[in-house]
């Protein structure tokens, strides 16, 4: 809440001066009309005295001061005063990334002035501080100053990922992914002859009646697994225009979609940011973990990252499925991918560089007056990245560009198929 001091307005001073001058001047000069001409100013002063506030401050309050919404939601922000019968003028400053209704962000209303704020995308937004003026009905008294800002936190939408789980070797205890370990599960492993100790309910009577010998069906256990989503926020590469998605936007959307996808399978999902813009989210399961992840994503600071060295990943279990969301323009990111692979993790690189950057299409779209040496530099950088991608693929790390929720479907299906593919068994 803010307290604004009440001051007389120039209108009241005008009324006092003109009223006195006309009345006294009329007396001195003998002008009867001057008395009549002083009437509006005398009435105005009397009105001002009548509506004068009994205290010397006006209190104004911003409602709400802190709110969390989802993307595409709008927030009505109100400025409320404690003076019924007074009118209020509010002017909210325009900020990049926020749309205001009315567009100018300024409203004049009685007692309660409302402006609707619509953020363009996820993130934290400071709305304000607004310029506020509260005036009485006669225009004689005014309180003006700066109001309190409002904070709007927009949670990124967690879209549904298209594709299967892609888990080849789950390392957990109980879950929904078929493993290679025989046990009590729902997926058939093999049909073999009955041995001592086999459960009677596993006897397959159809095969038994055909072969004349007892056969049982052995099943594969189903397990959950650990999934680690790594974000590389060391650099935020911009898109074609200021309103296009940056590499940070693409990484956030990829992580949100992947979190939802694997938490839906019941797996344990953790999120790590090597660029230190986001806090580490420890492994967890269930809908609560999704809320925690989305909340942590929404609090990422979009400003310039003061961190130059990445935060390495520690304490990772071999066999963890890792999705590394990065534009891969920093050598430390590529090194980290290799290190994770060597530790025995299944790594999938999700390329979050904005789509057209450094391509011939990008160069064609750039206007001549906007061209600079950076455009050609990005072309060279993209060629260098292609070489890095080739090396990663040779090392068994698939690289997929993030272009929406269907981007990973192919890779996940391939990984799923490789689980069922025959492997060379080493016999001692």
């Amino acid at each position, binding site marked *: 809440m803010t307290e604004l001091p009440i001051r007389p307005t120039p209108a009241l001073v005008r009324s006092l001066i003109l009223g006195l001058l006309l009345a006294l001047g009329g007396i001195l000069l003998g002008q009867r009309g001057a*008395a009549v001409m002083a009437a509006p100013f005398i009435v105005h002063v009397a009105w001002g005295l009548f509506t004068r506030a009994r*205290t010397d401050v006006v209190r104004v309050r911003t409602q709400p001061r802190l709110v969390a919404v989802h993307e595409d939601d709008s927030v009505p922000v109100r400025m409320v005063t404690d003076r019924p019968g007074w*009118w209020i003028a509010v002017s909210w400053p325009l900020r990049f990334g926020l749309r205001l209704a009315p567009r100018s962000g300024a409203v004049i209303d009685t007692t309660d002035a409302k402006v609707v704020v619509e953020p363009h995308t996820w993130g934290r937004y400071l709305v304000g501080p607004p310029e506020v003026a509260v005036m009485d009905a006669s225009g004689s008294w005014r309180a003006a100053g700066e109001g309190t800002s409002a904070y709007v936190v927009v949670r990124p939408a967690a879209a549904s990922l298209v594709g299967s789980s892609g888990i080849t070797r789950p390392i957990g205890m109980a879950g929904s992914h078929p493993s290679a370990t025989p046990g009590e599960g729902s997926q058939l492993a093999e049909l073999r002859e009955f041995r001592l100790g086999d459960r009677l309910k596993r006897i397959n009577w159809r095969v038994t009646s055909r072969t004349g010998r007892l056969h049982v069906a052995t099943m594969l256990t189903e397990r959950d697994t650990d999934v680690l989503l790594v974000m590389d926020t060391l650099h935020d590469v911009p898109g074609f225009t200021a309103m296009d998605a940056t590499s940070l936007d693409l990484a956030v959307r990829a992580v949100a979609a992947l979190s939802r996808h694997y938490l839906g399978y019941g797996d344990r999902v953790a999120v790590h940011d090597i660029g230190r813009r986001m806090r580490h989210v420890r492994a967890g399961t269930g809908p609560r973990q999704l809320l925690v992840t989305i909340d942590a994503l929404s609090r990422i600071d979009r400003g310039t990252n003061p961190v130059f060295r990445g935060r390495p990943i520690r304490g990772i279990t071999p066999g963890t499925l890792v999705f590394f969301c990065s534009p891969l323009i920093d050598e430390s990111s590529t090194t980290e991918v290799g290190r994770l692979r060597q530790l025995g993790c299944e790594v999938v690189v999700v390329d979050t560089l904005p789509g057209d950057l450094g391509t011939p299409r990008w160069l064609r779209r750039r206007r001549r007056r906007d061209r600079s040496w950076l455009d050609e530099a990005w072309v060279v950088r993209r060629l260098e990245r292609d070489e890095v991608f080739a090396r990663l693929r040779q090392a068994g790390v698939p690289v997929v560009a993030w272009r929406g929720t269907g981007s990973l479907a192919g890779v996940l299906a391939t990984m799923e198929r490789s689980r069922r593919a025959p492997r060379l068994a080493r016999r001692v």
Partner: protein
Amino acid sequence: MDELVAGLIDRIRTVSLHQWLTKLVLALTGTALITVCAAATGAVLAGATPTIAAILLALVVLWPESMATIAFLGFSAVWWLFAWHGSIWATVPVAALVGLVHLLAALATGPAHAVVRLAALRFFGSRIGAYVLATAGVGSVLAALTMLPTSRYVAWLAVVAICVATLVATLVAGSIDDAAVVPEMPDDDEPYLPEDLA
């Protein structure tokens, strides 16, 4: 000078439709006042006086809270008083028109790019209407008092009494530091209420 012109252009460009209408009403009212005063003017100052008034009015429309407003109102009042030699009752509607310009200039002080809500428009309309009626009423009473032949001194005494009373009341009201009760606003978005901290 360049900055002044740029500021003026920017000011004109960012005015909202609602504020344009407010300024239009103010301009039309001021023009009506100039027209009424010009109708009573003699030939000697016919050209210069409306021109000066029009310039002042333009400044009032652009900067309602500046000295131009008091200059325009004072100029118009004096112009009428010296130009009109007829019945005093004709001064009553002119005084009401002066009051209307004065009040519109007082209320047209919000942000130039602001949108005026319908509730505020109704609020202003009712208050302005009541003020104009009150001004006409008080002006009529004062005109009637000055018309009474034996009450010349009574009328002047009434005028002086009103002015002195207004001045005194303003000074007294300004010096009083009242601690009257103001309704408490419920702080439901504050983490603690004062009672919780006690």
